């Protein structure tokens, strides 16, 4: 809430499904092919061609609906959305309108301002993508690439549930996580596999009626979601405070100038004339088909997070980090399952060394779960110090191999020979007479200082527990 104003945001998200082929023909749905190479009579809308629904797309859409807690309807209808545009070769987009695939879902997400919240999903339906108009490729001309035309999408529409741009972003991140987890989409905003339009309005704090909304389009990256919504919110607040009123219209966000501009009225005065597509029979789904899709869904992040807390005794914060991405969660469980490592140490290693290394190396988890489990085991068994283990980890990540062998070749195996340790201990105590007398006068916290000095003298090889015991013996008068 800014200066007594409340922001109300609803999101419409278009997500590209991860299918091999397009929604209504056999063309490849891959991103990045040379322009107009993944096309055929069907997606080009040539006279006489007919659409045939892609079963995999239907499966993924149903999985998405189930993952978002929606009611999947046994009977849904494809409808034509009619408008003229050069990148829409049929003059209509096949979508769903009056009878969508699914309705009434919810997503639980963590609001930065208000804690754990539930956003309502009003509907989730299937549709095909349009092509791409390229306005900057040739001077004063528009080029059309129809590779994207017919690529399967789901549209996910929320209620007006978000009260700040930050909340909208938090919801999107949760949505992205769920869709990524379930293998439904690559959810790559930069490749256009996730696109967001937002309905934004403001009202005075305490008002219950919704203000006039605008639709913000052209938010092309996750980084811009908050910015675009903030710009539009601030524009509306400023307008209202200066006595003006918000006009219902479409606002286009420009990331270069971080500003919004109203779309020309002519561009948006559409009457889409939706009607059921007579080329496609109603989509009828059997209870068995829907149940199969439920079975195909993996454990979703929220459930996994709860389980990590209960099963591994992790904190909610640690569980959230470990479950944020499915490969990381799977990796963590791989380490625990390999044996030798307790869950808490495994969690600390994954969140620390493993994710740190991945960040610098293209998100690759370079050390195998078994390798890490062995490494943690060496620390637990007293063979390696924690410091030494980090060095072994670095080597393991870069070159692979056996943790113990690496530790040996690097000379990092801990020294547990009391004779050798005693030598280092007496050297250290001899060199720090002042500290010794302070310790003996009761300043016992200096013990860790002595341990550190012995470690330094041993270049990290001294067994810290044994060292501590020897120090205590020697320091006791």
């Amino acid at each position, binding site marked *: 809430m800014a200066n007594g104003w409340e922001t109300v945001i609803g999101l419409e998200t278009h997500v590209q499904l991860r299918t091999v082929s397009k929604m209504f023909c056999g063309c490849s749905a891959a991103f990045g092919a040379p322009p107009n190479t993944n096309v055929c009579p069907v997606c080009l809308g040539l006279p006489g061609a007919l659409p045939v629904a892609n079963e995999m797309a239907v499966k993924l859409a149903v999985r998405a609906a189930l993952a978002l807690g929606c009611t999947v309807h046994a009977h849904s209808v494809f409808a034509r959305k009619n408008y003229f545009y050069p990148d829409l070769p049929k003059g209509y987009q096949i979508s769903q309108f009056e009878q969508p695939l699914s309705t009434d879902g919810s997503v639980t997400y963590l609001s930065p301002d208000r804690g754990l919240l539930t956003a309502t999903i009003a509907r989730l339906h299937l549709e095909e993508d349009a092509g791409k108009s390229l306005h900057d490729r040739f001077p004063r001309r528009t080029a059309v690439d129809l590779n994207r035309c017919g690529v399967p999408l789901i549209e996910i529409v929320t209620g007006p549930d978000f009260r700040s741009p930050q909340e909208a972003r938090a919801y999107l991140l949760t949505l992205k996580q769920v869709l990524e987890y379930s293998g439904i989409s690559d959810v790559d905003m930069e490749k256009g596999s996730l696109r967001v339009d937002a309905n934004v309005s403001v009202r005075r704090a305490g008002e219950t009626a919704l203000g006039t909304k605008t639709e913000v389009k052209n938010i092309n990256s996750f980084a811009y979601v908050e910015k675009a919504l903030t710009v539009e919110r601030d524009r509306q607040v400023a307008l209202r405070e200066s006595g003006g009123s918000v006009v219902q219209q479409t606002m286009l966000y420009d990331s270069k100038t971080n500003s919004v501009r109203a779309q020309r009225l002519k561009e948006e005065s559409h009457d889409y004339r939706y*009607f059921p597509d007579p080329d496609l029979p109603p989509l009828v789904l059997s209870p068995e088909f829907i149940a199969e899709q439920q079975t195909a869904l993996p454990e979703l992040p929220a459930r996994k997070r709860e389980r990590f807390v209960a099963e591994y005794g992790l904190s909610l914060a640690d569980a959230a980090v470990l479950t944020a991405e499915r490969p990381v969660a799977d990796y963590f469980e791989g380490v625990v399952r390999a044996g030798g490592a307790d869950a808490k140490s495994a969690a600390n290693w994954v969140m620390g060394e493993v994710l740190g290394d991945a960040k610098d190396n293209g998100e690759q988890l370079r050390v195998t779960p078994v390798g890490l489990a062995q490494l943690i085991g060496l620390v637990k068994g007293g063979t390696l110090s924690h410091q030494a283990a980090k060095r072994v980890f670095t080597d393991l990540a870069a070159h692979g191999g056996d943790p113990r062998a690496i530790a040996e070749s690097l000379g990092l195996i801990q020294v547990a020979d009391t004779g050798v340790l005693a030598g280092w201990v007496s050297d250290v105590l001899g060199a720090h007479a002042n500290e010794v007398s302070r310790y003996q006068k009761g300043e016992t916290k200096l013990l860790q200082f002595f341990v550190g000095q012995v470690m330094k003298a041993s270049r990290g090889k001294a067994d810290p527990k044994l060292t501590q015991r020897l120090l205590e013996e020697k320091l006791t008068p």
Partner: protein
Amino acid sequence: MSDPNEALVNAKAVAERITKTRRLNACLTPPKELRASLVQQAAMAHPSGVLYGMPVGVKDNICTLEFTTTCGSRILEGYRSPYEATAVARLKTAGALIAGKSNCDEFAMGSSTEHSAYGRAVHPLDKARVPGGSSGGSAALVAAGVVPAALGSETGGSVRQPASFCGIVGIKPTYGRVSRYGLVAFGSSLDQIGVFGRSVHDAARVLSVISGRDARDTTCEDRDPLRLPTVPESLQGFVIGVPREYFPTDLDPGVRRACDQAIRMMRDLGAAIREVSLPHTAYAVPTYYIIAPAEASSNLARYDGARYGPRFNGSTDVRALYRETRGQGFGAEVRRRILVGTYVLSSGYYDAYYRKAQQMRSLIAQDFRNVFDRGVDLLFTPTTPTPAFKAGEKITDPVAMYLSDIFTVTANLAGLPALSLPIGRIKGLPVGGQLIGQAFLEDEMLEAAYALERVVPAAGEV
């Protein structure tokens, strides 16, 4: 195995006949191009095919690789499809020769073949009259003996009505019996490829070849190709319903006499004749003229000059390109229907027109089910209210033109199979009788047609 030279002989003969009947303006393919293609096709045709060497005319709204596909429209002038319709591919596999593209009303919108951008087609028996439409070119070619069979398409009677006008057999199969893949869409929920023949058997043979499931059309039923029935000795056991709404008091007296005679003959063959009622018949034409234009307004949106077909504007403004291309590329009747269709789908009018029409369509289909549920096997009606009318007679009065479909649109709205066969003549002009069957029971309908065809004096005055 047929005589391997038969195809070539037929190819040359049909090219010859097309040249001689150019006055009909029934075939849009230039004779030289047609002859060259036919000779080439004959060399490729497989002699073991069930239609080996049979020349089949194809309406110009069905995609072919051999010839352009213009739909009788300027907006597709010179358009060559990169793929062919499933029906055409099946004809070729069966050894048939694609005998050019036949003239039609633009995008199959019309009942006279006067709404063709390439000039009107002429009735083979009377040059002042129309052959009917929209598949008038295909009907005229078969009636004139140029080809033994031809493909047409139906949305509201576009095969049966010209068959009736031209004195030949025209079959519209059940919706979903024949793949629509490659049939240029007009009203997708009504469109179905149909067949013309000089006899029931010729038409049925071709229908059998083109019918059956097609993975490219999900509105095409997952069924085997139609099996042809044998010619029955009698119509013993058949219950044939005669719906009273199809015999209004102002029905042309000649048409009534021809129908009465045919009904008498079916009774003599052993059929039980029963008067029945289809109470919502009066709403069929208005219902049709909401649903078909609504679908057409969307189906024809793709013709915008951006990707194929001629452009009628050199400007770089895309709106102007659309406006000029569609304004000049489409004829008056097509523009009229696009406007009507756009209107009935518009927000605020959808419920009043389109939704209401869909409800009425269900009632019309229910009328038929009620009659069939009470033991009626087939219905018999006149195909059209009058014989072929004169060119120019209805061109300026769209409603009068639309009413010539009054007895045929119901089968399209209900998705039922129906056929027209000649049952007599009035002052030399053919009259057609219509049989309407139950969904996917074309075989029963064909049996009755075989039996009636054998006894009815098709060329006799009534």
